[in-house]
């Protein structure tokens, strides 16, 4: 979708569209999955996005927060946000009920290079809440499975109670068209998967580096270690993609808060290739 096609966006890009919460799923103690439906028919029907893009979620009286879209671009009419309660705005969202109205603006930013990835093997690495933006990509790959080669997903969380979307992943573990490995830092009796940090999983996987694109999303500390493992496997720096989180206010390249190196996370990212990230001061 181009911005100009959208009447509201062209008129005032700071104006959120009233959006109804149509479902809320408690994922963990601090994370919920919200399904949203933009109320205006025309805006809703023309809303298009790429996985990796985000919206500004707006609750008047409290403020706005940038949140990645978790659902697949192919899912029409609804979008999903997976939100951790982290402060004022996300806290206010968590106290909302099904049927309540909030606002969203967007979609903003540059997502994953899905067209480039097609026809290749894909390696996705998520840590903690980093699964939220990757979930959109995972769902898209799932929907268009024949377009991709081998698909490997590595996902690490602190403990079993923090593993998001477990119901879905438990089902996928039995499929042979996805290699999915879950790990936690601290296991409990219920845990039958791997234990240890996500980088340890690299010993367990085979990657044909010449054929593979990869995407990483997680807490800042994770990037360097995961990238080291990928480089050891021979992956090129311009085929590794990372998604950054920075403070944001406007989402559209005006307020200046999201600066990373010489760029703005909101319009130049949040997805950058590792090569681009290497050229951004203080990025990783």
């Amino acid at each position, binding site marked *: 979708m181009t*911005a100009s096609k959208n009447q509201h*966006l*062209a*008129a*005032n*890009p*700071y*104006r*959120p569209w*009233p*959006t109804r919460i149509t479902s809320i799923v408690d994922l963990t103690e601090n994370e919920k999955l919200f399904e949203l439906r933009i109320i205006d028919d025309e805006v809703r029907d023309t809303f298009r996005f790429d996985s990796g893009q985000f919206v500004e979620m*707006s*609750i*008047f*009286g*409290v*403020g*706005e927060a940038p949140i990645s879209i978790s659902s697949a671009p192919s899912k029409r009419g609804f979008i999903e946000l997976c939100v951790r309660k*982290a*402060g004022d705005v*996300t806290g206010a969202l968590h106290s909302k009920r099904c049927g309540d*109205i*909030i*606002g969203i603006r967007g979609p903003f930013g540059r997502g994953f290079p899905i067209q480039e990835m097609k026809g290749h093997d894909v390696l996705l690495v998520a840590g903690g809440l980093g699964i939220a933006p990757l979930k959109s990509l995972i769902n898209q790959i799932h929907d268009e499975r024949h377009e991709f080669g081998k698909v490997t997903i590595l996902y690490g969380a602190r403990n079993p109670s923090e593993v998001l979307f477990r119901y879905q992943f438990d089902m996928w573990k039995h499929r042979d068209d996805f290699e999915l490995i879950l790990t936690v830092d601290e296991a409990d009796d219920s845990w039958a998967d791997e234990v240890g940090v996500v980088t340890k999983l690299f010993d367990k996987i085979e990657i044909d580096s010449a054929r593979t694109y990869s995407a990483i999303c997680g807490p*800042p500390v994770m990037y360097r270690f995961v990238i080291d493992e990928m480089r050891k496997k021979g992956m090129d720096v311009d085929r590794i993609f990372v998604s950054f*989180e*920075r*403070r944001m*206010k*406007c989402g*559209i*390249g*005006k*307020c*200046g*808060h999201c*600066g*990373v*190196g*010489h*760029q703005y996370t909101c*319009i130049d990212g949040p997805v950058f290739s590792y090569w681009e990230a290497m050229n951004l*001061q*203080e990025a990783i």
Partner: protein
Amino acid sequence: MFFRVMDQSRLPDLVRGLAEEFEVVGPVAKDDRYVFGRIEDPADLELHYDTTLLPPKKLFFPPEERMMRFRVADNEVVDDEVYAGPRVLFGVHPCDINGLLLMDNVFMGDFEDPYYKARRENTVIVGVSCTPTDTCFCNAWGTDEVHWGFDIFLTDLGDRYFVSVRSVLGAELLDRHVETREIGDADTEAFQSASRKFKGSFTEELDTSQLPLLLDAKFDSPMWDELGDRCLSCGACSTVCPTCYCFDVVDRLEPDQKTGMRERRWDSCQFVEFAAVAHGENFRVSRASRVKYRYYHKQWGYLSKFERVLCVGCGRCERACLAKISPREVVKALETGGVQ
């Protein structure tokens, strides 16, 4: 562009005439300095001012501004209109006109900012030539000259003005309100010699060779720690800067808690919480990293998008800084190594 000549004695006619149609804002004296203020009487206009305390950005992007009024119950916008009355900004120096052009790239490029745009489109700009002061370094960036971004520009030739007319509206206003005449060869020569004199009166030529590259090459230089030690993180540099556009957004509820306003305010990358995110993470905790970021963004970040540095050499930040940090010093330190 076409040109006219106007006797300086006619200036009050022009100002009075414009005031019949517009709110006129221009440089006026305030204590021993100047500010852009409303002109009620042409005699209040101080066209021989050095520089104003705040740049004209405040007229397009106010320090605090209401973006929209909202209703909480259904999360609806009640009103997001901008009031932007017709206005003339009279007597703007080339650096400040260039400052507005640099701001235009941000606010009027992709995702047009409707608030800024409304004011920009409703403001007539009348520029005026200036005399460099000892804190001016616009010559370093070429922002000592201005070729567009104004409706009318007055170059002072002593007894008369050499008037450059950029827009149709500028031509009409001139025609309507003041007597001018055609330029002759003598006027053009006087204009050229005034320009030469102006160019020759800067106190120094700043070496800016390879500046964007040096910012990367010397990213880890101890010069940033020295500057960080001095900086007070007060944000005065951003406030007085004609090209600093960063802002914060806050919601304010009315006492009834049912309606409220979303407002934005000038912000500064020098404040410690500027790059802080949830969970206690902060991408620029040290003052050194924040001072560095200000220069890095102005002289490389912005340039990487718009091919200009985000500085017009007005010298306001140097005057405002209690720690006496100036862009000239920073540029020299990058070019030669070490802070004075």
